[in-house]
């Protein structure tokens, strides 16, 4: 599931707001981007736009889930930009350098750009759009006929999840799932739906809507626009096929 859904995660973070640091340093009016550089062997660098949203939310973190950052999570400090692609959350942060334009590092040119069918590529597609996944039942599990609580996660880099819909018949009909509190902006939101499986082959899917009104698209609609070479930010509706023996696997509709 993590490979299908892009290594998604949620934590409670503790740190200093990026805006506090930049204000202390004295941000010049023309400042528009900041380069974040890690102290890993490859000195990973990413450019972060200094939008009002980033300035109000981005943090330099030293704590995760109530303890110091673990070494593999970026100890002693790392950047965190809620809602953005994970690669921007530079671990082992050693330097922030403010500039007027993006720095065009390898990671934001050669990588993390989305190649379109016409040969052009989207760049700085930093926000992760609304996406959801049914975590139970899910791929490689096997279920028996009878009652099941369908459970899953939905999230959006643009804001709060307002609705999740689930189909248990391959998209013919959709039912609104319950959202489990707390429902937080740019954060995993749990959903659930009671269901009785009759033992017949079927397909489960979920789709979500965020508070900007954005609706998670179908795979078909996404591919029609973006083609099949832009996996970095893929967020289409995903399908679990249930066989008669109760085994689940990922399929493309």
């Amino acid at each position, binding site marked *: 599931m993590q490979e299908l859904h892009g290594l998604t995660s949620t934590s409670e973070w503790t740190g200093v707001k990026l805006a506090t640091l930049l204000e202390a340093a004295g941000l010049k009016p023309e400042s528009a981007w900041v380069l974040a550089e890690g102290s890993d062997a490859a000195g990973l660098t990413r450019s972060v736009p200094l939008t009002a949203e980033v300035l109000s939310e981005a943090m330099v973190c030293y704590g995760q889930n109530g303890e110091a950052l673990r070494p593999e999570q970026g100890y002693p400090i790392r950047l965190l930009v809620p809602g953005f692609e994970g690669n921007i959350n530079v671990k082992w942060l050693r*330097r922030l350098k403010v500039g007027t334009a993006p720095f065009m590092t390898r990671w934001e040119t050669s990588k993390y750009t989305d190649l379109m069918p016409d040969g052009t590529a*989207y760049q700085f597609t930093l926000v992760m759009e609304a996406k959801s996944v049914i975590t139970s039942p899910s791929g490689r599990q096997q279920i028996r006929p009878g009652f099941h609580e369908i459970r899953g996660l939905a999230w959006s880099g643009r804001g709060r999840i307002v609705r999740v819909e689930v189909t248990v018949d391959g998209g013919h009909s959709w039912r609104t799932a319950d959202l489990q509190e707390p429902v937080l902006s740019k954060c995993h939101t749990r959903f659930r739906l009671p269901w009785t499986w009759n033992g017949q082959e079927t397909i489960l899917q979920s789709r979500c809507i965020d508070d900007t009104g954005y609706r998670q698209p179908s795979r078909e609609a996404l591919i029609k*626009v973006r083609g099949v070479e832009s996996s970095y930010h893929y967020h289409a509706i995903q399908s679990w096929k249930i066989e008669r023996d109760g085994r689940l696997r990922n399929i493309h509709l």
Partner: protein
Amino acid sequence: MDASETSICKRLAMSLIAALMAGCVLQKGRGEDGVAVRDLGHQAAVEEINLWNIDIGPNGEGLPPGRGTVPQGATIYAAKCAKCHGPSGTEGPMDRLVGGRQTLATASPLKTVGSYWPYATTLYDYIHRAMPLDAPQSLTAEEVYAVTAWLLHQNGIVAEDAVMDARTLPAVEMPNRHGFVPDPRPDVPSP
């Protein structure tokens, strides 16, 4: 986290603030708790900043003195790069660096330095900071310029007698320089 870890984290955060403050004019001097921010940590010396200030801008800002040629680059590439990227830059097993022109709009796009990278300066930045994988930042400026020259030549972008330096490298027009569009999303019609 225990007290000593908290203390270490705070000290590091203060060092970061000090690094940020260097070269900047302080507009506000106090943090939310009333402590004067200028009293935290120490002012980073220019020599300290220079150790880390290694990024190269797309306009060439940050490029060091020195120069490198295609033949010099061929020798260095064969010794330090070919084992991962292949003898000609096309074989892999790691990222293909050469070829792929005219493939981006096909069913089998090949994204290489020549076919995809928009800025030649990024090549200098990345080779210097991250390559070779087992010894990053071990190449001299002359060596990085030379490997960059060789890779650009292998991709048919500069001539065999090209010399790369702080003046010539930013002037190299990469084939896919105008192939990128800023984030146009939302782009998929709402269902």
